[in-house]
């Protein structure tokens, strides 16, 4: 059984209802037109594209939140929308703009709750928690209510919370949004380290070239719900010598908008 992420001809249409007086107009909007992709276990992939390209819709289908209109998806051998609760034990997710920590309680309390939610054996939980506290330097604020933490501290705790049940696939949606340069750098390093040491498959969406550069080895660019580029970051650098990754991405987006494909 394939243990990574496999997507075949994924498609998602939304029905948009508009009322014009008493008349109801229903139109179909295609969020994801046709995506096929294979990510092997342990690989870190940046899944990027302009706003409205279909990134979040794809992530929501991969995590079982949305049912696709058509296509086949396998995440760790599970069909996400059918086996959502079983799959949840094997995946983690961090949404930069949404918190999973209890705001009025210290991160340590959320960790205790997650241990119960994911049925983690006590000894395993204590071992993982200690490893995360050490690597993410959570010790000084583990017992401080989340509302009193800086955004950088909170995001470190957020990522640690999502790794507590040792997921095999981690979905990161804009994980460094709003962080200062130092906090961003620290967080990327921690994700990269965990990816390498634990063989974690990372699926990253971000508009920040620094995130992509530090965390991912492969980049997939989508636009209008279709893949327009799928390549290794090292290969992109060879193709655009002398350009920073941000410049490369900007060129790809521009050519995609102008010609409907990368130059």
């Amino acid at each position, binding site marked *: 059984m394939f243990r990574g992420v496999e997507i075949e001809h994924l498609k998602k249409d939304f029905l948009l209802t508009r009322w014009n007086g008493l008349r109801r107009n229903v139109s179909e909007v295609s969020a994801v037109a046709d995506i096929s992709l294979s990510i092997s276990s342990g690989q870190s992939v940046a899944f990027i594209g302009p706003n409205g390209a279909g990134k979040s819709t794809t992530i929501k289908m991969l995590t079982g939140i949305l049912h696709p209109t058509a296509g086949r998806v396998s995440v760790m051998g599970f069909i996400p929308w059918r086996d959502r*609760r079983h799959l949840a034990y094997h995946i983690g997710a961090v949404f930069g703009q949404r918190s999973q920590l209890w705001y*009025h*309680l210290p991160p340590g309390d959320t960790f205790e*709750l997650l241990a*119960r*939610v994911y*049925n983690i054996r006590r000894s395993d939980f204590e071992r993982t928690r200690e490893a995360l506290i050490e690597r993410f330097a959570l010790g000084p604020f583990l017992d401080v209510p989340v509302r009193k933490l800086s955004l950088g501290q909170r995001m470190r705790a957020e990522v640690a919370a999502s790794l507590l049940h040792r997921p095999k696939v981690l979905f990161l949606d804009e994980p460094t949004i709003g962080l200062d340069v130092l906090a961003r750098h620290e967080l990327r390093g921690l994700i990269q380290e965990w990816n390498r040491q634990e063989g974690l498959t990372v699926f990253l969406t971000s508009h920040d070239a620094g995130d992509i550069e530090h965390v991912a080895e492969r980049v997939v660019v989508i636009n209008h719900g279709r893949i327009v580029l799928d390549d290794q970051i090292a290969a992109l650098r060879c193709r655009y010598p002398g350009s920073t990754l941000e410049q490369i991405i900007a060129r790809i987006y521009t050519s995609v908008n102008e010609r409907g494909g990368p130059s």
Partner: protein
Amino acid sequence: MNANPITKYTWIGYTAARSNLAYVGEVISRAAFMAVILYIFMRLWTVVYAEAGASRLGGFTIQQMIWYLVLTESIMLSSPRVSMEIDEDVRTGRLSVQLLRPLSYALTRLAQTLGERIVRFAVNLFAGTAVVLILVGPIRPSLSGLIMFTFLLPVAFVVDFLGYFAIGLCAFWLESTAGLMIIYSRFTMLAGGMLMPLEVFPPRLQSIARRLPFSSMVYGPARLFVAGGTDVFRQTLIMQIAGLFLFGGIVLGLQRLAFKRIQNHGG
């Protein structure tokens, strides 16, 4: 660690209860509000009893009436903002984060609500008891009444949760669920017997109120605490079971339809 699903939800309830106690100032202000409300009601009912020249109204002495209000106010003021939370989950896309867990969304919300509500109810009851002990003195509830009250109160909280949960799910279709929430809460207050026991209602209104689930959430438990009564217990239990089926059925139907409508909120 225990794989029993009950452990998960119990722990969620426990965490919600702890989170609710995090702000000591809010807990104190809640208790102070309860004390003020009770003082006002006590003055009002003292005037009503004096004007009527009666020692009992609807079978209640003034002491029993004030203690009844302690219970109904404690129940009503302990109600968390369930429908607004769900409304927010839907509108902000926070629902997506909840669905990533190996948990049932409805049971998670139920556990959180019960955890919060038990803390709030305990604080309100403590404050109310302190005030009325000073103002009107103690009453002697019967042991059987207390047992029946303890049995029915959690069920009342569950029925009320289902009502608010159903309203929250309407956020999938409506611009705002605030209107529905206000109508529901006013029905619970008025038809539920928050301001006065159903025995004091005009006969026709009393008969209607007794046939609605709202009375089983407020009047029933409070009446059992103050004066006991197996008839009230039976009637309350029947209405609670009816409420569980009615609101539970609505929730199941709405949730099924709503989760099909989950849309991507972008970002």
